[in-house]
């Protein structure tokens, strides 16, 4: 009983923290001034939000009986976390790289109020 309460609270806390990261990422994408700085929340906070919520799911699948099936499910979810943790920042890096190569200048404080050249 106590174990279930502790497990459930861990799941709830992880999901809430993950959602907080997602919310921060969404606000950042909307509020930041230019392409590069918008990729910053898109890359970092989404990765963290996905990781947190996925870990919460991995814990949740173990809560209802610690069986081999449940263990396999949570292992698979943890694998998803690992792959997202590797690929999502790489994708952001690739997009930034493409932006730099295409010649998009980063936003600077002097030309605030205007479109980035």
């Amino acid at each position, binding site marked *: 009983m106590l174990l279930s309460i502790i497990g459930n609270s861990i799941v709830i806390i992880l999901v809430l923290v993950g959602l907080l990261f997602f919310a921060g990422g969404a606000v950042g994408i909307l509020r930041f001034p230019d392409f590069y700085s918008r990729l910053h929340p898109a890359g970092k906070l989404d990765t963290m939000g996905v990781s947190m919520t996925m870990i919460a799911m991995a814990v949740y699948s173990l809560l209802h009986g610690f069986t081999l099936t449940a263990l396999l499910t949570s292992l698979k979810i943890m694998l998803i976390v690992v*792959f997202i943790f*590797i*690929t999502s920042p*790489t994708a952001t*890096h*690739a997009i930034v*790289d493409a932006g730099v*190569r295409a010649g998009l200048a980063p936003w600077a404080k002097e030309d605030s109020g205007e479109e980035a050249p």
Partner: protein
Amino acid sequence: MRIFGLLTVLLCGGLLIYHTADFPAWGDPASPASTHLSPYYIEHSIDDTMVPNLVTAVLADYRSYDTMFETVVVFAAGIACFFLLRAAKSKTPESMLYRHIPTGITLRIEKGSKTPPDSADFERIDSVWVPYDLIIKITCRLLVPFIQLFALYVVAHGHHSPGGGFQGGVIFGAALILFALTHNLSNSLKRINEKTSALFAASGVLVYAGTGILCLLLGANFLDYSALAPLLGGDPKMAHSHGILIVEIGVAIAVMAVMVWIYYNLASRGRHDEGL
């Protein structure tokens, strides 16, 4: 002439829309499909084919003809891209770029001039060449084997979970395209060239149709896998399960090869000299 075309389209479209009114209602329990077909599949598929996944049983056993011609459609798409896009004659370009790897110097060689010798020091590069990005390259090198392994899992696990030949083949093709994207076209053409991909595309369809013909030769109907029981061992019901797996592998090979083939033709505008 155009007015006739328009009239034909309008007439056909109108007829189609008019006759949709005759269809049974969405989810109608009294429609023919729900009264005998679906209950039969639901009740008998596990006994007939030993496949727990109903969708796979219907797709690759009861409706095997459909799936065979779906594979043929995929193959035809690859062939169509080949005929539409592939440039028949590879023109020698006006100038070629070579990169001296130890120094990083790029040489521009005009048409007709002497090209550098084939050695590890020189490599031919695309006209829109960009330096290799270490991070992206390493990440993809890390991921491609896992994606391919997952593709094989999806193909083999179609009996028990969502998956099967089409999905697994697409994932495998996507892994190869990811490799081509992170390296370049000539690099991936070295791994799997155009002839190989075309051959694989055709042989995938051949595996499917060949299984059907083998059943025919063994004295059963086309694609009736129970005839394969003496070859595969086990009883006729297990032969259905194995037969589905063979067919799925054929589908996966065809889909994978066609994906790669279409990518090659699209990425290089049919010239296969340089591209992403």
